[in-house]
């Protein structure tokens, strides 16, 4: 697993997801930035009101961190091709997020690239 946490000042429109079925404020996420996380899925929870992915990612010094990635609702994700079986623990993925502005290990979901090269957005 290679660490890659590239912050790209995003062409947000390229990755723009539809309105998330959020149940609360998203003010803490930086929608102007896309950050790529290359890592391994620790957990993928398919649930309402938000699904989530936890991805274990190595930083530049090789230290492992678990990133929380907040997704929309399953109803919304199904329209983008998601299934509850789309991700499993141990899957290698590249997840793009809008990171937390605080620098904490978390963000809101933008898209995922699975090991077989399939790309899925949030809605």
């Amino acid at each position: 697993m290679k660490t890659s946490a590239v912050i790209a000042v995003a062409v947000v429109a390229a990755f723009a997801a539809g309105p998330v079925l959020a149940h609360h404020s998203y003010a803490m996420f930086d929608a102007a930035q896309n950050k790529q996380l290359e890592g391994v899925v620790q957990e993928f929870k398919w649930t309402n009101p938000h699904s989530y992915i936890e991805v274990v990612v190595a930083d530049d010094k090789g230290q492992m961190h678990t990133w929380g990635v907040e997704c929309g609702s399953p109803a919304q994700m199904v329209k983008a091709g998601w299934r509850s079986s789309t991700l499993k623990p141990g899957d290698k993925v590249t997840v793009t997020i809008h990171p937390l502005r605080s620098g904490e290990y978390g963000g809101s979901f933008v898209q995922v690239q699975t090991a077989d090269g399939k790309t899925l957005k949030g809605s």
Partner: protein
Amino acid sequence: MLRSKLALLAAGVCLIAGGAHAQASEPTQLGALAPENLAKKRPKAPWNLTGTWIQESAKTAVHPANSFRFGPPYPKFLPEAQKEFDAGAKATAEHRAYKDYIGQCYPAGMPVIMTRVWPIAMVQLPTVIYMVSGFENAFREIYLDGRKHLDPDLVVRSFNGESIGHWEGDALVVDTTAFTKEHHTIDTGIPISDDFHMVERMKLIGGGKVLEIAYTMTDPKMWEGEWTSTKYWKRVDDQDITEVECLPDLDQHLPSTQSSLNVR
């Protein structure tokens, strides 16, 4: 002799008290689903909104751009509300979530529950309209059977309040009171008091495919005059609501609710 007079007096007091109690008792209110209530003769409702609806955010031919918030414009806030409004605006400018009770699993409450980005199932009967939001399955009922608001001393305050509706031409006018004020805000942290009162004027427009609700909200402890806002919903015949719970152990996995950028 004295003992028997006292006994008579006591019996009289009991009778008087019993009679007073009987006079004070309210006639039994039939439940909204009681067959006898449903079968009562009433003028036919001008429309029926039974269906699944979601707030329409895009500008359409039927309505202007629609916000999920109830302001701006805002009324002139009184000091307590102004303080919270200012604190919320400051937090927003700093990209922080301000008193985001919904994110902590508190109910959204009226009017905010109506504008979550989730479908709402609505079932209209002659005596009542039931609304169940897809978001946290928040439940709301609007009585149409002519009942009055409960005595304030009896009503149990709630996040969605007690709603009573009546027809005025092609509009359903819904009066809602008895809100709980704790952890219940509008937009970004704007508080309400026990005196918060809401009137909704509902219409079906656009050939029955658009629900328009004009809100008039008053709270003499929080703002001056009326706070008005009009929202629109569209029918979504290809959607159902599902069970949705806000669970503390789910929240523990969501960066948004766990982040230090929350102002509690």
